[in-house]
């Protein structure tokens, strides 16, 4: 529970979250305005083939003389869009399924739990690969669907468990006694208390979405004609960048993925602390004093 300070001021004071947020914010800015600011077109061929990073090409060039830096910048937009979009979609599905199963119980819960368990048991990446391989069309939408289908179950399970325990709380019974409809109880009374978990789930799912998407594209199962971090990997792999020693080709997108993932993970640490006051880092004040604890 917040202790009289706004979430904002608390977030600002927390180092981990600030760090994570700044990384993510940085990438968002790059995605939004990056493509407008680059000098070279990412698809333009040039004579500088497989050049290491230099003044002309900050991250070197590909086998066809394309500027890696430009590609990474343009790819950011696609990857982020897909990552956040698919993550959001998967979270929405998990919220609806998890809360419904947790609150209604009985047959509804049994059926939905079965569904959740089935999807949890099926290995995500192999399923994603198979779906991507067999879908007749490629592109961001099928990718988003695949990620959603394989990524919703975990969050749903967590939310179901949380909702089961919330249901027994007195304020939920009080809402029933006040005549609230069940839908309102689930989404207006219970859900706000689970926001921290949903947020953490969202961030986790976004990480998964980005990784899954990059992985699938690396395997060539995405739309290889668009430019995204994953497709950069694909082309780098296809053209044997590793063997040729063109480390800049795949290191750049790799670092981006890793950095974004780290940033999101740090945000999650912060959300954990927001939800669970016991994990909160206590600032040291001048006198031997830290966060307030309720006296006996």
């Amino acid at each position, binding site marked *: 529970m917040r202790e009289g300070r706004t979430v904002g001021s608390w977030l600002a004071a927390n180092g981990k979250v600030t760090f994570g947020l700044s990384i993510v914010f940085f990438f968002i800015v790059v995605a939004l305005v990056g493509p407008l600011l680059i000098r070279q077109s990412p698809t333009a061929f040039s004579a500088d083939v497989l050049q290491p990073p230099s003044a002309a090409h900050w991250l070197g060039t590909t086998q066809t003389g394309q500027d890696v830096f430009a590609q990474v910048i343009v790819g950011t937009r696609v990857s982020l869009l897909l990552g956040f979009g698919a993550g959001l979609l998967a979270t929405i599905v998990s919220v609806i399924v998890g809360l419904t199963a947790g609150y209604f119980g009985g047959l509804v819960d049994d059926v939905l739990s079965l569904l959740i368990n089935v999807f949890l048991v099926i290995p995500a990446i192999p399923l994603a690969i198979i779906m991507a391989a067999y879908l007749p069309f490629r592109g961001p939408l099928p990718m988003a669907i695949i990620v959603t289908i394989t990524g919703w179950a975990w969050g749903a399970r967590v939310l179901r468990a949380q909702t089961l325990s919330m249901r027994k709380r007195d304020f939920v*019974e009080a809402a029933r006694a006040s005549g609230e*409809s069940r839908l309102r109880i689930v989404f207006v009374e219970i859900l706000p208390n689970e926001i921290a978990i949903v947020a953490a789930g969202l961030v986790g799912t976004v990480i998964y979405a980005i990784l899954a998407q990059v992985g699938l594209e690396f395997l060539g199962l995405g739309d290889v004609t668009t430019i995204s971090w994953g497709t950069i990997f694909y082309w780098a792999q296809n053209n044997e960048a590793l063997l040729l020693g063109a480390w800049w080709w795949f290191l750049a997108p790799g670092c981006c993925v890793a950095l974004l993932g780290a940033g999101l993970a740090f945000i999650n640490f912060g959300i954990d602390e927001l939800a669970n006051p016991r994990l909160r880092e206590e600032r040291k004040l001048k006198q031997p004093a830290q966060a307030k604890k309720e006296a006996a």
Partner: protein
Amino acid sequence: MSTKITTSTTEEPILEAVHLKKDFPLRKVKLFGAAEAVHAVEDVTLVLRSGHATALVGESGSGKTTVARLLARLYAPTSGTIRYREEVIKARGERALQGYRRHVQIVFQDPFSSLNPMHTVRHHLSRPLRIYGHAHTASEEMQLITSLLERVNLTPAEQFIPKFPHQLSGGQRQRIAIARALAARPSVLLADEPVSMLDVSIRLDILNLLTRLKEEEQLALLYITHDLASARYFAEETLVMYAGQMVEGGPSEEVIQQAKHPYTQLLLSSAPDPDRFGSSGLQGNHKVAPWIPAKQVVSGNGSGDVPSLIKPPGGCRFHPRCPYAMPVCQQQFPPRRELGRGHWVHCFLYGGAHKTDAKPSTDVTDLQGQGGLEQSRSLNSRESIQ
């Protein structure tokens, strides 16, 4: 529907529970035999009248909280009927029960968990106003919220409206819970141990508030508690429950000063009563307080504890601990016996045994005598103090 009863009589029964029973099935799968269940409430009958407070006294495991939730229809009874103003409540679904719920509201024990930590006071009070159609516009809502807060002595109201539960003290939260219940304009208020989790010095304030509301609104109050003294202070009628069964009831003064059921007597002598410490309390004669010692139970939970409700003792559930138990006590539950002046008891000591009106092993007058002796001792010690 108006909540103010303008008739002169306050004896009108508003809510009646008849032979309520509640079993909570356990999820264990049993291949043979009946499914196990927690038999929380076994045959409870009570009547609530407007302008009248009834106390339901019992310890943990007595089923008193379950009774409150049954009356609020948060649980559906396994069997038995609930009648509101003579009409049997048959509804089962949430929607259908809304009509019932506007008349019967509940205040919970724990002020820290009965308010949603993510919502303001305003939200908590506006929801019932909107749902039950008492406010249709924002300004009406505000007006009604302000008046509700004033009725529960939370002034200035504007200060409290935007607050979150964690910004309020326990007593304030409980007042909000009461205001929320009042927002529906009920005729019946079920208070489930409303002050047990509050600081001692503010309990009386809340109880006095409830009494005032009872008088102003002619509410029918059900006051659930484990504390006989506060039942005496607050309610005109006291009912005693043990392990899901009702054992004694009647006017509060009568039940407490002339307790007839051995369990009620046990409760009375176990309650802390500083007035008697001088002569017969724990310290005085260095001996245990003179309550009727319960028999040691060899198996099961051990002495002095409420029995398991999954496999409760047969007949009268108090018989394993009762010093006056007779063979008939474990065969059947004693029928209700009227003792006059509205005082009734379920105990074979007062007759009602199957074959004959069997003479109890201890003379009934002995019990009364003992009760009287106990009383006069405590009176003596009090007088000597003053």
